[in-house]
């Protein structure tokens, strides 16, 4: 079974690399935002440059998780290749696990330009240990977005998945304070911020890279989002399975 998960991951990742639009998009936007928003305004102060870099890493990972995953799932569901794979002697697990691992690999690739810009063009500083912790926090912080991506992908057509995931992406990122610090945002954004999933995720990252204490409200909301998104993804997956394979 483990062998098959690796096989599925390998070929799905190859497909991603050969048509790298999703990879390029999730690497380009945070890198551009980094150059436009972080380097000129927060680049000279080590602490704020480091937290802003973490925000941009999450911004890129969110794109891979929410937009990339939902579009991939929705497109694959429409291809006759999908039912063919179900005739092979493997359950649905290897393909599903391959999808998640491929998305995670895409997320890790998408943060590379942000890290390079941060290292060379800002005063951000981080120890190797804290960087490793930060990447771990990035993967944990992306869980609700992967689940939301799965939900959208299993519930919507490819065109609807593109629209829905992109419409959700920017407001969630902005409301969580990923793009610009919450302190410069209007009051209603500040009061809303603790309840969006990106807030808990970025506070986890700041805890990892800078040792800041996350707000309990944001963490509770983050956990709540995971439960909610998992339930929604499971519902959409079962509904799709029932429609196509029962």
């Amino acid at each position, binding site marked *: 079974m483990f062998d098959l998960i690796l*096989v599925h991951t390998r070929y799905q990742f190859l497909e991603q690399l050969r*048509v790298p639009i999703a990879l390029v998009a999730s690497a380009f936007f945070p890198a551009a935002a980094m150059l436009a928003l972080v380097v000129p305004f927060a680049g000279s102060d080590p602490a704020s440059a480091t937290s802003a870099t973490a925000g941009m890493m999450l911004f890129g990972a969110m794109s891979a998780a929410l937009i990339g995953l939902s579009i991939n799932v929705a497109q694959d569901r429409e291809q006759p*290749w999908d039912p063919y794979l179900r*005739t*092979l002697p*493997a359950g649905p697990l290897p393909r599903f696990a391959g999808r998640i691992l491929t998305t995670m690999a895409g997320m890790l690739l998408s943060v590379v330009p942000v890290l390079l810009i941060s290292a060379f063009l800002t005063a951000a500083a981080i120890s190797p240990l804290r960087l490793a912790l930060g990447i771990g926090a990035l993967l944990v912080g992306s869980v609700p977005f992967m689940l939301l991506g799965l939900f959208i992908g299993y519930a919507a057509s490819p065109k609807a998945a593109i629209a829905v995931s992109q419409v959700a992406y920017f407001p969630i990122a902005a409301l969580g304070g990923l793009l610009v610090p919450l302190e410069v945002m209007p009051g209603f954004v500040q009061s809303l911020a603790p309840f969006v999933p990106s807030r808990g995720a970025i506070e986890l990252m700041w805890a990892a890279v800078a040792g800041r204490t996350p707000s309990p409200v944001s963490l509770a909301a983050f956990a709540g989002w995971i439960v909610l998104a998992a339930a929604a993804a499971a519902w959409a997956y079962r509904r799709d399975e029932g429609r196509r394979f029962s």
Partner: protein
Amino acid sequence: MNPPVLARAIEATRRYGDVLALDRVSLDIGAGELVGLLGPNGAGKSTLMNLLVGLRRPTSGTVELFGGSPSDPAVRRGIGVTPQETGLPESLRVGEIVDFVSAHFPERYGTAELLARVGLGDLVRRQVGGLSGGQRRRLAVALAFAGRPRLVFLDEPTTGLDVEARRTLWEGIRSFHADGGTVVLTSHYLEEIEALAQRVVVIGRGRVLADGTVREVRDVVGVRRVSFAAPAVPDLPGILRSSVEDGRVHLLTTDSDLLVTELVRAGTAFADLEVRPTSLEEAFITITSEEEARV
């Protein structure tokens, strides 16, 4: 002694909402058989295939594969299925797709050998997106054999292929069968079924309408249409169905020679006699309506 049964449907019924796609179908497929499923589009061939390969479960009745359930992945190690060529992952190379599919099976062919067998030996490194329709079809058929299956399901294996490619593929299917493999193939071309199959199962409106040797089934579906100008349908033997349109009588029969002889012998006035083979479609309609008349 009968060969062991590899695949079996017992009173299998499948509904999609209000649509009855398969209606109490019972069928045994024995080891070493080469069975053709013949029927018009929408007749239930694909539904039956989907039940046998585990993609769908019957609404009622039972479907077995090697004595187990087709929905058990371990059971499916013994089968091979053709994907639809339109869905092959565009960005993967031909050899990569074969490697990927082969990795699911304990026994496999070498990728190069398998591709050489379907005439794609020199395209191992070509991306699927750059293949012609016929090349994709051949790749799809090759994938069905990748895991050295005991039983292979080929859905319209040669649709869209030129004559030469079709013959190559037919040879491949025959040699797999000669080595002891079991084949179930669908087609809506009688010619293809005739060329390959020993046993033909005709499916129409979700039921098995005929199940026999190619010859037996051809006699059933070998219906001809005899038409001539006459005021009314004369009383003649062997008429399956008759109708009168614009002063012309149309008769469907399995024995047009006898019918015409009797027509002349009866001394009825007629003009403008025409005898032509019916399409497979018409033949199916005839069999199906007989079936309904009997119920």
